[in-house]
């Protein structure tokens, strides 16, 4: 069944970029299934802390710059049977496209040289699509005026144009709508050596993407569709995304499905492939704008939206499995031949760290995203971009309300990240929907949803909330507003706040097991608990890419530990966690954007053993509740002192005894910083005693079970405390991965009532049996060393005599 002769696989990992943290779950799932299926895997990564796991799944982790040269060196040295480029980022495909003809004995899985190259070379992409009658935006790159004008005559206006300079840089794209504007553009004296690139403009077209999977026997399935609320011209990942694509009727959907599958065939992609389309609903013009033959943010989003285990399926297809004969676990068969049906809407909304309004365009500017689910467009808008708890919408409303119509119209013409708020304000001022649709390129159904929301907020302002106007809201299709208290006690109303499974009821998805839920409106709950005792974990809102990684890591370790200790984890947060596949059936995950769950009394208080709070702040009620255990970072002490030599340690305390399983050592040498993880082994007895004494003294005042992060600076020959915080900070991944003691599991055991050994020796307190040590240079470059290597590094570079 599978491709024969493959035992050792080299995974090309992602580069060390914040952009790639979304791939962490996919990478985890990929490594997990390869491990379960018995393959030996090596991964080359720049940042090993992005793997969400220690080396459990990997036979080898190579920490190197992920580039063609290093991959080629590895292949020549170790001769893996295959390389897998589809869980790395775009860089991995770039490497593959450069390896053509250089790695004869090693098979490329999933996306071959040609397809990889076509994701970079626009000319190649266009010619291949034209050759196969796939609709593509034609393009010319020339320095000959006659050729350029001939091309424009063949495609007509509007067009976009830019200059490509000989140093490979280019000007930004310019919109050109007529001959006059074209002549002006051509007359610019930028550079006579520049080539001019021109293509048909699809600005304002609706944007869709279809993700398909295909096996090596040419079976293919459409896994999901995504619709951008904003049109082409706004970066896809700065747009509000909706799945499924609601505005496609049957003939349009089948057209895009067939084109996406045909493209996967044309490029012989085995695995997952996302194809982007520009569609004009007035003229029915349709173009393929891009294809992504690898796992990506789109596949992560669709995996959450549909419950279809896309990452796991993709790698098994890469290995040659047939679509309907896959495995989710060793020996556990799974039918991947399914086009998942969604009876709900799942949306991805971009988030910006700054509260300011900012213009958005073809380049991505958002810092993170949130995902919400619901049963109507109004509901997902209410839970996501218009949720004041997430987006400060009341402040936006006040600012927009002060603008005059001209100022507001300027914000409508030039898109900003407040677009939905701007449109609500415009609708409030009776701007007409067709005009707004024409100007913004946003399809009418979304504007109608905003109008419903506006009408709904009018009801709320005019009256007290009661069951009658709740009924009115329901009548407008506005659901999931967070009025659980009002709705709970009424038997005769249409809807109430309930918890629904993320998995639709369908013949197709019948056998897929998972426990992912979301709070919404309806008449009954899908949620059913087992008899096991539970630990509720409150998950934090994500505000940056780095936080995603920390959240993924801590929640994963918590769930595993809670499960191993015989309890059941319930993860609750304002947005879903996107857990790896192997925990989706052992932990309950409930997305609750308006934090309504506590009012629903669905979880028996007696069954809740503890509440672990990983969100930022506790309520007064929580502060007085002994069952609530806070693990998010709480600063206890902070002193403004800096030194070239410093240390960060994690302390695990049961309130009486403590251990220091992981020490991160940091030294500035010239303008370079060196950080060494698991430094315990290289500390002197004097240092250990000094640190332990300080920690003991500080903890005597705290007297609680928790993990503590201590930061020290070496000043005047002594270690001085510069910061103490309780809970988990960003170092937790390095502490956990570096340490041979599992910090989070130890903490869970302490919460469950276990205690640490009393009167531990200094060696026992600092015990760390690691054999590999991670070195970070300038907070960017990671390298892995053995003990001898670290000693050499210390002697030669960090502390030369």
């Amino acid at each position: 069944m599978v491709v024969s002769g493959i035992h050792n696989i080299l995974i090309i990992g992602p580069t060390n970029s914040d952009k790639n943290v979304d791939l962490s779950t996919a990478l985890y799932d990929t490594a997990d299934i390869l491990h379960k299926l018995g393959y030996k895997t090596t991964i080359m990564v720049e940042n090993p802390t992005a793997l969400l796991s220690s080396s459990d799944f990997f036979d080898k982790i190579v920490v190197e710059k992920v580039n063609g040269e290093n991959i080629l060196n590895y292949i020549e040295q170790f001769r893996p049977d295959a390389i897998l480029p589809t869980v790395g980022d775009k860089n991995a495909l770039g490497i593959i496209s450069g390896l053509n003809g250089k790695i004869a004995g090693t098979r490329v899985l999933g996306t071959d040289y040609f397809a990889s190259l076509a994701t970079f070379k626009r000319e190649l992409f266009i010619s291949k699509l034209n050759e196969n009658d796939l609709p593509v935006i034609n393009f010319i790159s020339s320095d000959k005026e006659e050729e350029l004008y001939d091309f424009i005559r063949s495609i007509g206006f509007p067009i976009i144009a830019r200059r490509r300079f000989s140093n490979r840089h280019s000007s930004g794209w310019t919109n050109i709508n007529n001959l006059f504007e074209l002549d002006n553009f051509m007359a610019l004296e930028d550079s006579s050596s520049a080539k001019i690139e021109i293509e048909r403009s699809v600005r304002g077209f609706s944007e869709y993407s279809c993700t398909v999977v295909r096996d090596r026997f040419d079976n293919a399935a459409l896994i999901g569709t995504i619709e951008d609320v904003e049109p082409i011209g706004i970066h896809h990942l700065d747009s509000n995304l909706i799945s499924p694509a609601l505005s496609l009727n049957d003939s349009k959907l089948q057209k895009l499905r067939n084109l996406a599958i045909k493209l996967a065939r044309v490029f012989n992609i085995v695995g997952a492939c996302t194809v982007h389309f520009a569609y004009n609903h007035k003229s029915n013009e349709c173009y393929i704008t891009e294809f992504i033959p690898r796992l990506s943010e789109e596949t992560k989003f669709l995996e959450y939206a549909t419950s279809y285990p896309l990452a796991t399926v993709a790698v098994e297809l890469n290995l040659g499995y047939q679509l309907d004969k896959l495995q989710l676990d060793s020996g556990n068969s799974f039918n991947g031949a399914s086009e998942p049906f969604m009876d709900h809407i799942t949306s991805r909304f971009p988030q910006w760290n700054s509260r300011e309004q900012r213009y958005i365009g073809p380049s991505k500017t958002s810092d993170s995203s949130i995902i919400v689910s619901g049963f109507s467009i109004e509901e997902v808008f209410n839970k996501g971009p218009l949720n004041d708890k997430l987006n400060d919408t009341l402040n936006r409303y006040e600012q927009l309300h002060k603008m005059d119509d001209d100022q507001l119209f300027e914000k409508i013409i030039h898109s900003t990240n407040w677009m939905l708020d701007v449109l609500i304000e415009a609708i409030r001022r009776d701007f007409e929907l067709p005009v707004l649709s024409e100007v913004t390129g946003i399809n009418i159904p979304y504007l109608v949803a905003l109008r419903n929301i506006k009408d709904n907020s009018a009801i709320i302002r005019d009256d007290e909330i009661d069951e009658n106007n709740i009924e009115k809201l329901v009548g407008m299709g506005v659901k999931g507003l967070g009025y659980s208290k009002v709705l709970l006690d009424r038997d005769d109303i249409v809807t109430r706040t309930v918890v629904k499974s993320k998995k639709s009821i369908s013949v197709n998805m019948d056998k897929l097991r998972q426990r992912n839920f979301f709070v919404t409106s309806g008449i009954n709950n899908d949620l059913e608990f087992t008899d096991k005792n539970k630990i509720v974990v409150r998950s934090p809102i994500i505000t940056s890419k780095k936080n995603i990684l920390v959240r993924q890591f801590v929640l994963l370790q918590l769930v595993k530990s809670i499960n191993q200790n015989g309890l059941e984890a319930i993860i609750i947060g304002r947005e879903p966690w996107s857990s790896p596949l192997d925990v989706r059936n052992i932990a309950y995950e409930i997305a609750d954007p308006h934090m309504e769950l506590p009012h629903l009394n669905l979880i028996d208080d007696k069954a809740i053993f503890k509440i672990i709070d990983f969100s930022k702040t506790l309520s007064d009620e929580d502060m007085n509740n002994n069952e609530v255990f806070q693990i998010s970072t709480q600063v206890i002490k902070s002193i403004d002192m800096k030194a070239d030599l410093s240390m960060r340690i994690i302390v695990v305390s049961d309130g009486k005894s403590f251990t220091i399983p992981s020490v991160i050592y940091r030294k500035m040498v010239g303008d370079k910083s060196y950080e060494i993880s698991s430094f315990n082994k290289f500390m002197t007895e004097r240092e250990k005693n000094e640190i332990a004494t300080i920690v003991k003294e500080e903890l005597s005042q705290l007297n609680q079970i928790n993990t503590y992060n201590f930061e020290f600076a070496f000043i005047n020959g002594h270690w001085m405390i510069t910061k103490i915080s309780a809970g988990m900070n960003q170092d937790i991944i390095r502490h956990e991965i570096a340490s041979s003691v599992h910090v989070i599991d130890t903490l869970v055991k302490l919460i469950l009532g276990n205690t640490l050994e009393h009167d531990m020796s200094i060696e026992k307190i600092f015990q760390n049996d690691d054999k590999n040590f991670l070195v970070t240079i300038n907070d960017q470059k990671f390298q892995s060393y053995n003990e001898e290597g670290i000693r050499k590094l210390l002697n030669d570079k960090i502390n030369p005599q």
Partner: protein
Amino acid sequence: MKRYLILEDGTVFPGEGFGSSAITTGQLVVSNNRTGIEQSVTDPDAEGQIIAFTLPGIGSSGINRDFYESINYKCKGIVVGSTSAESVDNSIPFEEWVTSMNIPGIKNVDVRALSKYIFEHGEMKASIMDTHDEHAIDQIKALVLPSDLVKQVSTKQSYPNPNIGLKMVIIDLGLKYSILRQLSYRDCNSIIVNYNTTPEQVASLHPDGVIFSNGPGDPKDLPKVLENIKVLQKQFPILGIGLGSLLVAMANDCQITQLTKPHHESSLPVKEVASGKIDFVNHNHSYTIDQKSIGSSDFIVTDICVSDGSIEGIRHEYLPIISVLFEPEAAPGPTDGYYVFDEFIDLINSIKQQDWSR
């Protein structure tokens, strides 16, 4: 206005009325179609049915009258969750369209809970009403649904769909226009006849092939059609689709059973047994062919549903009969099943080249 969907076992799903305000009763079917509301509503298969669509945001993609699957027939009622008041292409708004079709509708229903209930308890009668008292429930229980659905939807008079290619006689059991569209794309010269047309009348039209179309209801209610199939299959190549397929199987001593989880989904996988090839096609049937009875018949199983293993296609070992339970014409759904029409035409052509005498 508040209205109620009441199931015959007394279970009530509240919602808000739209479309016609009339009280309606029918067989409740839960449809997981991704698109194609207008196709599903006008599909003659939907005769006598109240269709609950589980798709969210219905109406966003617009209503296209070119997609109708019949002119004269429509379902008895529509149940939906969320709707959109206007569409992307400025076509007639969904609710306005339902009103213009004079179909009773109920929206803002918890369709997830409804579909779960029907999956667990099976398809049953239901009614859309303004009240939900015991009297209303008794009324539904007492109501006997008509068993002559095919009679109601089959064409009363024969009509042609002319072209220059092979001549097909289509026995109209509830024909979808998309079957005609697919035959037209292949230049077939089709004549559509009433479901009770005798074999002699069919033979007098000198067809190259005979198609038993899709249609509503229980195949056991059509004994006369079974007898006609037994005669016609000895004279002409036969293609059975949907209800037609079940009748072809029954005419050859196969047993029919009801699916535990009915197939009403526009994209379910079907696997060709011989090649392992998987296609995604539209399913709209509550019955299937009993696996055991196939063994003692002259049929071989050609296609199975990958999701639940039920039979989706059969082929006669000796006679030129192709039969599929799914809807190869799509409408709505993926177009992967179009090959069935090509296979049937190939079958006819290969027979024409041979001296096919019985």
